């Protein structure tokens, strides 16, 4: 059996394989370090019990689902209060409730979102209290 242009084909294949594998070789087989998320803000430091509206594990994994339910309830059902599993009541508002404690959006929300490559469109309309200039 004879392969036409074998030299060119195998050179091409070699380049292809090197390019595809380069990211893994260059990182030495390790995964990149997760982003450092800062939760220390003046509002959080003042809390007597350092707990978000639900348990941390739940908030980490499911906050997007929670926010989606909030959006549906506030916009479409006209309901504005969330009663957490501990019975505490919160106003369902991204800018006023979430960002009241997490006032460091760039070190909290953004760092993880950048790392994960997700681009939530929240901030094209919802106002980040620090960025007030019109």
């Amino acid at each position, binding site marked *: 059996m004879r392969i036409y242009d074998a030299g060119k084909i195998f050179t091409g294949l070699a380049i292809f394989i090197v390019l595809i594998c380069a990211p893994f070789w260059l990182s030495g087989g390790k995964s990149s370090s997760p982003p450092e998320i800062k939760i220390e803000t003046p509002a959080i430091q003042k809390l007597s019990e350092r707990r978000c509206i*639900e348990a941390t594990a739940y908030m980490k994994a499911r906050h997007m689902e929670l926010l989606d*339910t*909030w*959006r549906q*309830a*506030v*916009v*479409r*059902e*006209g*309901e*504005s*209060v*969330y*009663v*957490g*599993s*501990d019975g505490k009541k919160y*106003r*369902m*508002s991204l*800018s*006023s409730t979430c960002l009241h404690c997490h006032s460091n959006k760039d070190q909290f929300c953004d760092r993880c979102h950048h790392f994960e490559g997700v681009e939530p*469109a929240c901030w*094209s*309309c*919802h*106002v980040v*209290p620090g960025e*007030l*200039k*019109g």
Partner: protein
Amino acid sequence: MKSTRRTFLKVAGVSLLGIGAKPLLDALAGGEETKIIQAPEALKAKRWAMVVDMSKFKSDADLKRVIASCHRAHNVPDIGDPKKEVKWIWTEMYEHTFPGQHHAYTPETIKNRLFLVLCNHCDNPPCVRVCPTKATFRRDDGIVVMDMHRCIGCRFCMVACPFGARSFNWKDPRPFIREINPDFPTRTKGVVEKCNFCEERLARGLLPACVEASDGALIFGDLEDPKSEVGKILSSHYTLRRKNELGTKPCVFYII
């Protein structure tokens, strides 16, 4: 035991009942359920409506004050270009407010004055009918609201609305907002917007911003409650609705 058709059906029926009861029992047993509720201070009505008492607007400054209070509360941009303007509440001439009503003998004072107009929160809203994504919908209390998350900017609603109550965001509105109210979202390029009867304020027990700023010229209340302020005015005064003949059943009434 010999299984008959009758015993089989009995067992099957009871098992089905059992399966159906499980979620119910789970719901009752779960003490740590989270809930989403209305704020206790929220204002409620069967059918929200507004009366615009034009006799109480003494000057254009009164109108401007009311418009400014709404636009400040809702981050409505001041674009400047009338072709691209965004407005929730604005003024129109008599002949545009009540077309077909003006004639040669209409008093000059009425012909030449500006009328306050806004979304009519129709009972039969054409904007809701045409919206392909249900971004615009009518709540049970009659308020016609927009869900900006769903708006795709097709502008069918702008064509459907006979009152021109809707504006399109041709560009990012943020640079055109003088002072951003952090408590209310701005809009983004490519969505339609309009008056929402201050549903976000009603949910927190507050009257609409324009009503608060109007010194009694705008009256807000429950249309279905004859004892409400709106109900009392409508039963004792002659009121007009805009373009009544189109059958959209506006819920903003005018005293001239």
